[in-house]
């Protein structure tokens, strides 16, 4: 059950709480209606044991925005994104849904720091039905060891692919599961969510469409792209910003957006071509 505590006398800054991490994976339902308004803020001192306890537990949140609070998430590698996610990072035992249309908006770039971390710990990454061929030199360039990558092809049937995802999540054999499955019914997503919670594994689902009443505990949408300030086709072009919106997260009551610079500076353009 969710508990709400009010501390009207405390101040307003979300500070970093010391890492009190426990692997509690309670899957409590999200309260859709945020009753308490936004005027209540919390400031915790590191010494206050009550605050640390409340901050470290992912199934507990206060009647205010959880954005950027707590430390129970896996760091995303992008500090601005950390600031708007509950737990300052990816949830540990849940399904994250990332919506982007078309593929290639930067959703994998978003995950590269996470993948690096998983591979560094020696776990494997399971890719279920990726839409295109995976390029292993690119993985090596990004710092992800291609030896620890396992692919399930597009040729596998949908049922088999979902079975493999559920099994991988449940048995905690892989560190990370990435799946590209469109049009999954809510029941199936709920099962995957339960499997992730049972096996304490993070699973990421990539979708095209935004279906409003969806089960995953964290849903991001990669909305759009904003070119940089300089002229787009000039030499040494600024890569521009990608806007990422958190559609739904445990503890957040309004969608928060952030603009990230996902790609590093590209190589200079040496010459222009006539088409």
């Amino acid at each position: 059950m969710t508990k709400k505590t009010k501390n009207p006398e405390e101040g307003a800054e979300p500070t970093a709480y010391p890492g009190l991490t426990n692997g509690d994976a309670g899957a409590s339902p999200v309260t859709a209606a945020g009753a308490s308004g936004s005027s209540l803020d919390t400031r915790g001192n590191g010494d206050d044991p009550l605050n640390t306890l409340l901050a470290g537990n992912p199934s507990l949140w206060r009647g205010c925005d959880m954005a950027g609070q707590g430390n129970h998430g896996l760091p995303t590698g992008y500090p601005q994104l950390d600031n708007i996610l509950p737990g300052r990072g990816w949830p540990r035992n849940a399904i994250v849904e990332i919506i982007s249309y078309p593929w290639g908006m930067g959703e994998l770039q978003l995950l590269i720091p996470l993948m690096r971390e998983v591979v560094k710990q020696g776990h494997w990454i399971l890719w279920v039905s990726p839409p295109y061929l995976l390029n292993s030199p690119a993985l090596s360039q990004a710092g992800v060891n291609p030896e620890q990558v396992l692919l399930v092809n597009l040729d596998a049937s949908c049922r088999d692919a979902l079975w493999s995802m559920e099994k991988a999540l449940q048995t905690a054999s892989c560190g990370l599961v990435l799946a590209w499955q469109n049009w999954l019914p809510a029941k199936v997503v709920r099962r995957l969510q339960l499997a992730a919670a049972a096996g304490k594994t993070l699973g990421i689902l990539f979708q095209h469409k935004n279906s409003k009443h969806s089960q995953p505990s964290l849903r991001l949408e990669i909305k759009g792209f904003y070119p940089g300030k300089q002229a787009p086709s000039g030499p040494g072009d600024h890569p521009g910003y990608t806007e990422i919106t958190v559609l739904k997260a445990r503890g957040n009551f309004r969608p928060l957006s952030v603009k990230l610079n996902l790609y590093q500076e590209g190589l200079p353009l040496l010459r222009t071509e006539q088409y």
Partner: protein
Amino acid sequence: MKEPVEPTLQLPLPGSSPLKKGQVVHLSSAARQPLPANHRGNRGRNGSLEPNDSPEPNNSPEPSNSLERNNSPEPSNNSRQADGPGQASNRKPGKKPDGLWYALYLPGFSRLPEAVCRQRLELLAQLATEVSSGVSFHPCALVLEIRSSLRYFAGIDNLHETLSARILQQLQEWQLPTLFHYAASPTVSGSLLLARGGCNLLVYRRSNLRSALGRLSTDVLDLEREQRRRLHNMGVRRLQDLWRLPAEGLRKRFGSRFVNQLHQALGERPEPQQHYQPPPAFNSSYDLPCEVENTGLLLPVLEEFLAQLVDFLRRRDLSTSRLVISLVHEQQRNTDITLGLRQPSRCRHHLQQLVEIQLHNLVIPAPVVAVRMQVTRFDAYLGTSGKLLAEDDRAVTANATNAGEPDNRTADRHGHYRDDRLDLFLDQLLARIGGQNIRRIGNVAEHCPEYATRQLDSLQAPDRGSQHACPSNPRPLWLLPEPRLLQISNGKLYHHRPVSILSGPERIESRWWSGTDIRRDYYVAREDSGSRLWIFREKTGGRHWYLHGIFA
């Protein structure tokens, strides 16, 4: 016709297990006597309690030209036989009955290469185990211990017939010359020498060995060329000439090994043999009481089989990586299910889960009447050892939690434990989805991007060294299987939206030797919707623009 003084003991039949403690043996009143001190006998012999170690062939029918008998001591044999049950007193106490060793020498094998020779000998040894329980290997020869099997085969001739029929058949299959020599004597080396000498001789008593061997020429001995030449020069042509020479002098001139060989042939030195162990095999079958159409009902039977299999593996310190389960139908061919494992295992839970997955996917053409399980491939079992001292374990735990990481996976400390889980998961995945849809990838040091990723089977591991073969220019995470042509209109490139070039070009020219040479200029481009694309322009041919990859 049986001898009248045949000892009237009711014994367990030869070939059955040796007498166990407490097993009751009925002795007739005439034959009751103190048992010899070593009545349990050796491995490979049955618990034959016959006090009579005189040769069997006196009981068997007349020889049919198959084996000559060294017949000189026959008359004394008969007299010994007539003693009957009182014979035990004639024997020295503590003396074991002499074994009879049957040697098979195959000269045709000497021309074969070593490995093939060994392999063929092993196959022949498998045939020979039907006849004897102790088979040992020698160069181009097999030696069988047949004392214990003589009664079962009712005489050495039948034994010889059986064996030689099989061996001839096998030699004919292999298209080798079907000539082989055989001999039997109370010692291993003696039989070997006799067989090599080409005389198909049966020698029963040790005392006759000397004269029997004496007639052989010294060529049958295992000698180096130099030694052979020296013997020849000395005028020693036959073994009986060797008997006349003093042992000390021979030892000085030809070495101990030579003299020991002679002594072993005469039975004066012990010659321990290492017997052939047939490879382990597990077979079990069960006939169902009624026809079964629902494969789920077969699960209890298979679980029972698996329990037996795990027991078998534990006893022999083995593990397995391949099982074959056959479902027998009445009028159709058996349905075979093969379970292959990535790593050999004997964990019952693991095997059970795999069997369940396989049965789940299975469609049977007809009702099942019997179930069989067969395992033929075994591997040694590699166990994991725990830590000796408890303090080490605690220290490691403390370090892990101090690092601040929640140890969600308790297996992180012991790398091998985590690998077990991954292996189990991979096995299940392979069983469910099939090997062709599960892939691993590896880098290839190749400029052409289509060939720079190697798709591997899930069972193979990519090379370690290929990690370093990655190019310095940015590469996209997604590659299209086929490059897609881009449209040009109004002087702008189009994918779904207008495309603008960000950086480049990177020229890749490669594979001119294979006929499909590529000469391309690669650019990083961006669509208006925000996707980053990897496009190229051909330098040859139509100079079109293509989309090859997407930076996800």
